[in-house]
């Protein structure tokens, strides 16, 4: 082992700079030492070489919203199993949510997640911490100390912080520490007891509906609070056209807000629920086809900054129930890239824009040095075959829980190899032999 590896004969794609050219990447001690057309066989000395066969070499994906079950619900997912699913999906960094048991609202728990990840995970793991103690929305968490301990952002789980004054204080206080607030946007009064999008479909199915306005109301409020405090704010995920309009208007006014969208809301709509299929039950709910189109438009225009998997493992016990009683959530780490590439193959979004929302944009928001092909950046890389067709088989997925809405979906394109700090953590060809 020389500590030097060269990935040669690749199509280098750096979404941050728009670089798209043939060449290679030289990795030294886990960092990109050189890249470009000059990095080729014969120029890399005694480095171990890997022939990329002309496939796309891009920064590894950064997933800003991953729930694991650790600590507290390890039967659903551990940091280890989530990281294996991530690696197989081309995701090299996961940001995990604080809505664990116990809630990540204390320095000792941030430390616990970081140490567990170091010892068991094969990709980078960054915990978000709770914005409020116990996620209860009343008392601000120790944002300064938690940031120092390694919390990468702050989140209130799958609930909005409803006390407007506390939200204002959190935004103002977090700003002093440069801390990013990643907020779920949903009015809990309008969405109480709701189990799907409110529309003709919910009426036909006889299910309680969650109106898109529930999301827009909180997002609108938050944008006004950002204008008041100048805090660092990211809407964790939006799902409807009304929200996109708010984000567009805010950005046009120069308000420093950003937002994410889940791959589910880019790929699916409320009709996929069909006859009460609970694997399509999630929060926010799948919306109308017009809303889905809006999400795709917002992604293409750059108004939506980030695509997340919204990975949320739930076991069969809580999913195989009547729709209204079933748990929300879908897994997504391993299918994130495949489902995203559908948008590219459908010509909805160009490849650089798509990958930007999965790499350099989240890196910028989170202050990570990864997410780009650049000298000195961590060698978190993925080799992507844009064309290989494959079919999702839920029981073959690496997550402990199998609640995917993409079971039996046919995808085109996948990660062939995944590198984290220069180390190969997933190899499709080897994995298939097993």
């Amino acid at each position: 082992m020389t500590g030097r590896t060269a990935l040669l004969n690749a199509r280098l794609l750096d979404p941050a700079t728009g670089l798209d050219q043939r060449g290679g990447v030289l990795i030294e001690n886990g960092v990109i030492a050189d890249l470009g057309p000059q990095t080729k066989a014969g120029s890399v000395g005694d480095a171990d070489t890997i022939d990329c066969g002309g496939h796309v070499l891009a920064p590894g994906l950064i997933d800003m919203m991953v729930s694991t079950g650790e600590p507290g619900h390890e039967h659903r997912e551990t940091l280890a199993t989530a990281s294996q699913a991530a690696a197989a999906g081309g995701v090299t960094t996961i940001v995990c949510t604080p809505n664990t048991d116990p809630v990540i609202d204390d320095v000792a728990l941030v430390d616990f997640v970081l140490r567990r990840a170091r010892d068991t995970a094969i990709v980078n793991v960054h915990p978000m911490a709770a914005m409020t103690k116990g996620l209860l929305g009343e008392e601000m968490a120790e944002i300064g100390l938690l940031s120092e301990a390694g919390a990468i952002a702050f989140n209130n789980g799958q609930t909005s912080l409803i006390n407007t004054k506390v939200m204002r204080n959190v935004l103002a206080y977090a700003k002093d520490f440069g801390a990013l607030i990643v907020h779920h946007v949903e009015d809990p009064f309008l969405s109480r007891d709701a189990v799907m999008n409110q529309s003709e479909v919910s009426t036909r199915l006889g299910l309680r509906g969650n109106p898109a306005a529930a999301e827009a109301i909180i997002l609108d409020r938050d944008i006004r609070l950002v204008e008041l405090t100048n805090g660092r704010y990211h809407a964790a995920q939006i799902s409807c056209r009304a929200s996109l309009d708010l984000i567009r208007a805010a950005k046009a006014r120069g308000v420093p807000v950003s937002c994410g969208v889940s791959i589910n809301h880019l790929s699916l709509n409320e009709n996929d629920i069909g006859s009460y299929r609970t694997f399509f039950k999630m929060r926010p709910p799948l919306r109308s086809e017009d809303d889905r189109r809006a999400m795709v438009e917002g992604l293409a225009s750059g108004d939506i900054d980030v695509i997340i998997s919204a990975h949320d493992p739930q076991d069969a016990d809580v999913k195989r129930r009547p729709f209204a009683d079933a748990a929300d959530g879908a897994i997504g780490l391993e299918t994130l890239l495949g489902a995203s590439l559908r948008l590219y193959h459908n010509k909805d979004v160009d490849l650089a824009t798509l990958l930007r929302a999965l790499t350099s944009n989240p890196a910028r928001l989170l202050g990570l040095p990864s997410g780009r092909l650049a000298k000195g950046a961590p060698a978190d890389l993925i080799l992507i075959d844009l064309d290989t067709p494959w079919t999702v088989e839920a029981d073959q997925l690496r997550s402990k829980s199998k609640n995917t809405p993409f079971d039996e979906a046919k995808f085109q394109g996948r990660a062939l190899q995944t590198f984290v700090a220069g180390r190969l953590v997933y190899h499709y060809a080897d994995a298939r032999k097993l």
Partner: protein
Amino acid sequence: MSLAATTSTFSFPHRHLLGIEGLSASDIHALLDLSEEAAKQSRQVVKKRDTLRGRTLINLFFEASTRTQSSFELAGKRLGADVMNMSMGTSSMQKGETLIDTAVTLNAMRPDILIVRHHAAGAVELLSQKVDCSVVNAGDGSHEHPTQALLDALTIRRHKGGFEGLIVAICGDVLHSRVARSNIILLNKLGARVRVVAPSTLLGSGMARLGVEVYTSMHEGLKDADVVMMLRLQRERMTSSLIPSQREYFHFFGLDFDKLARAKPDAMVMHPGPMNRGVEIDSRLADDARSAIREQVEMGVAVRIAVLEALARQLPNAA
């Protein structure tokens, strides 16, 4: 003999002392000079004089106080006044009397000077409009506490000789602090460079327009400071979610030896009291040689003697 007789140019053309706002730099210097004399007198065996002999001074405190109330009482007694203390927490206010009715009632008793503390900003000025005597603001809500700013200024002047170009960092709960407001106004008038250091949740909006440099980090805000003035943190700031916890507050905003090392080597440390040791100030630091906290208390009596003395000259029938 009055103290003022020793300072030939003394003039203080005000009936009330409602705030530092409204005083000129020369008013302030005159009061500080007079306070200096009072401080000397207070170190004599015989501390008592007769400037206010026959006069009635009422301490009217709608909010609990230890050092302000007792130092006004002492100041009044040292000048020979009859001093009455009224703690309104247990009196007519609880029976539903309005502030103005209380003022009218007290006015009928013909006091000469009223010392008033109230929890509402502007209340002392309102009361002053309804009485015939002189009124001293001993703290109105989050607005002003002029005698505190004067005693802080006196303490600083004794250590630093003057104010021009001095860097004074006021740290902590600026938003709710009347001490901070009075100090900002006073120090600006006298030519000091004033900084405020606090988390954004404890700063007022438009703070920079008050003529201060605003910092949200102690590390930056204390750099090269000549004076570090700590403010008291009330416990209810935690429950109202302005800050997360005592330990976090102390870690980032509590004054300890590390943070003080950013200030000038001869920086002095001040606190208006009462202190929360281990919350806004390291306990050992509070007792350190650089701490002027005890001296502030001594100067508190001196400044209040000087203020009463100055107002006495404006009283009807004054000699």
